[in-house]
């Protein structure tokens, strides 16, 4: 292992990247408060000028860049942040995450077209509804672990889609059309002067949600993403986050420490579902019409791939993963039917290269080293369906 002379270049490249990401991690961990705020500020400014045409012509030569930034890129990032709560923090493998995205989307469509509620009201209702559905899914199924849980959640995702497909009230397979856009907040226009023109944002009305310009929707998504990041980060560093970490690393041991594991797993499901639901509401508010096939199983799998690829449990990592998973297939659209092959190849390469993810958390590495697989139930001992704590039977 220490023999550096006859290793192949790929291994050396991998080790190089690894030590680079480690040193970056250390720098960040020891950086003073003000330095972090500067980085946050720079990132927000970059995010704001991101939809500019100049950037778009390189990033997305085949598709409208701001629309692409809204969905799939922004949408995937938001969903990955939500799924990261469930998979990355609490270590519960959820293969039906798209269900909550669908519930949010349908909430927007139903309340918007049938009850004429306003986007902001629906956002609140949709988030609550998704959280409740997370609890409804979690309560009977979170007694299962690992693969068993994964299979049941997979089933739930399919149930939601198939119920939508077969319910006439919500349009069956034709879905719902004519979903209202969010109300315009202000007609304020970015001034048409030299600086904003130079970066390609002159004349944009960032808070007027029309049918043509994708930028306002992107900014809306950005706002929701920032809120989700703050929420998720605060949870991670709290008592709740510690409980989740202990459940992920050893659920039985967590219970023996006095952590009410069932309640915390349910909370992870509800919070993850709420974030997914928010994504659904925002997505539908732009889409005008949604159909059940907007929410296929493959979307759950893709978001999970984004989380694992980026570095499950580490927020910047999962966001990077989601960005790549959303962006690469669009960027290589010029390859036509070969693009999926290339995309698959890239994913395989990345996982061979970085099995722990592109930007893994330090803790995750230690978990992987211990051989638990670092994915809670996924890698750990798999209890049978009868693995139920005594008290939960009694209640």
């Amino acid at each position: 292992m220490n023999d550096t002379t006859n290793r192949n270049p790929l291994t050396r490249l991998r080790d190089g990247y690894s030590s680079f990401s480690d040193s970056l991690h250390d720098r960040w961990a020891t950086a003073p408060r003000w330095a972090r705020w500067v980085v946050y500020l720079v990132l927000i400014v970059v995010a704001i000028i991101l939809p500019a045409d100049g950037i778009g012509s390189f990033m997305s030569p085949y598709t409208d860049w701001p629309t692409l930034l809204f969905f799939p890129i922004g949408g995937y990032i938001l969903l990955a942040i939500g799924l990261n709560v469930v998979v990355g923090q609490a270590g519960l493998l959820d293969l039906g995450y798209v269900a909550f995205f669908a519930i949010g989307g349908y909430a927007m469509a139903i309340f918007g077209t049938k009850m004429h509620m306003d986007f902001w009201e629906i956002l609140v209702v949709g988030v609550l509804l998704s959280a409740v559905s997370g609890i409804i899914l979690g309560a009977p199924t979170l007694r299962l672990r690992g693969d068993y849980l994964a299979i049941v959640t997979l089933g739930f995702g399919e149930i939601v889609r198939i119920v939508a497909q077969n319910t006439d009230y919500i349009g069956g397979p034709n879905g719902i059309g004519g979903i209202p856009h969010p109300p315009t907040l202000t007609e304020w226009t970015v001034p048409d002067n030299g600086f904003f023109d130079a970066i390609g944002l002159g004349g944009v009305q960032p808070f007027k949600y029309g049918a043509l310009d994708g930028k306002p929707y992107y900014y809306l998504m950005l706002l929701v993403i920032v809120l989700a990041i703050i929420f998720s980060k605060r949870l991670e560093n709290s008592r709740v986050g510690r409980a989740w970490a202990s459940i992920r690393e050893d659920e039985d041991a967590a219970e023996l420490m006095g952590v009410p594991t069932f309640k915390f797993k349910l909370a992870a499901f509800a919070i993850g579902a709420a974030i997914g639901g928010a994504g659904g509401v925002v997505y539908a508010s732009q889409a005008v019409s949604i159909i059940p096939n907007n929410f296929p199983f493959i979307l759950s799998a893709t978001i999970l791939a984004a989380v694992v690829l980026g570095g499950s449990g580490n927020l910047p990592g999962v966001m990077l993963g989601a960005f790549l998973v959303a962006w690469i297939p669009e960027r290589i659209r010029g390859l036509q039917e070969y693009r999926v092959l290339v995309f698959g190849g890239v994913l395989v390469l990345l996982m061979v290269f970085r099995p722990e993810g592109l930007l893994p958390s330090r803790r995750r590495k230690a978990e992987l080293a211990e051989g638990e697989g670092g994915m809670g139930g996924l890698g750990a001992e798999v209890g049978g369906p009868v693995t139920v704590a005594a008290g939960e039977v009694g209640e």
Partner: protein
Amino acid sequence: MLLEIKDIHVHYGKIAALKGVSVEVDEGEIVTLIGANGAGKTTTLKTISGLRPLTRGSIVFDGKDISKVPGHKRVLMGIGQSPEGRGIFPGMTVVENLLMGAYARRDEVEKDLEEVYDLFPRLAERKDQAGGTMSGGEQQMLAIGRALMTKPKVLLLDEPSMGLAPMLIKQIFEIITEINRRGTTVLLVEQNAQQALQVAHRAYVLETGTVVKSAEAGALLNDPQVRAAYLGGGAEAAAGPTA
């Protein structure tokens, strides 16, 4: 009686793992459960700490029937366990692991942390090392230390000697005696019957889900049947109990 297990039956699916086990642990004692693989020792401990539901019988702790109390609440009542295979949180540092032990507590933990470091100076040296990267012996110390951080009235230890070198085994058993001397009741599950019987006051022998024998630990060390079955029998065992 601090802990009283009355005729408990536990099933994994349709298979009965425990078929009527009764064990009593008095305050201040070290009681050990010995037996071969699959005898039901670990299941007994898991049932006491609430990780397994019981199908029949009852568990009385401190005068209260806790058979239906969820595991995480039993911790607050005073049942601390160091689980089979140690159950260290691999991604957390030694301190974080120990503090997880105090997760459910609302009071000051500094004093208890100091006490654990006093018992296991090795842990104090390795405060910031990730639990998963420690050696087997260190992990065992951490598992016991973490269980002590729950401030247990009774400490359940599941095979603390498993996979450890003889020197370390000796050390772990000395520490168990010391913990008991400082006032914590210990219920010890062991395959290493020789060692367990030497530190324990009383012992139960489990075979395929039932208690086949219970007596003073010293008496079991001299019991010909127990010697033949669990202590390697023959001349070596005959010389053992004189110590």
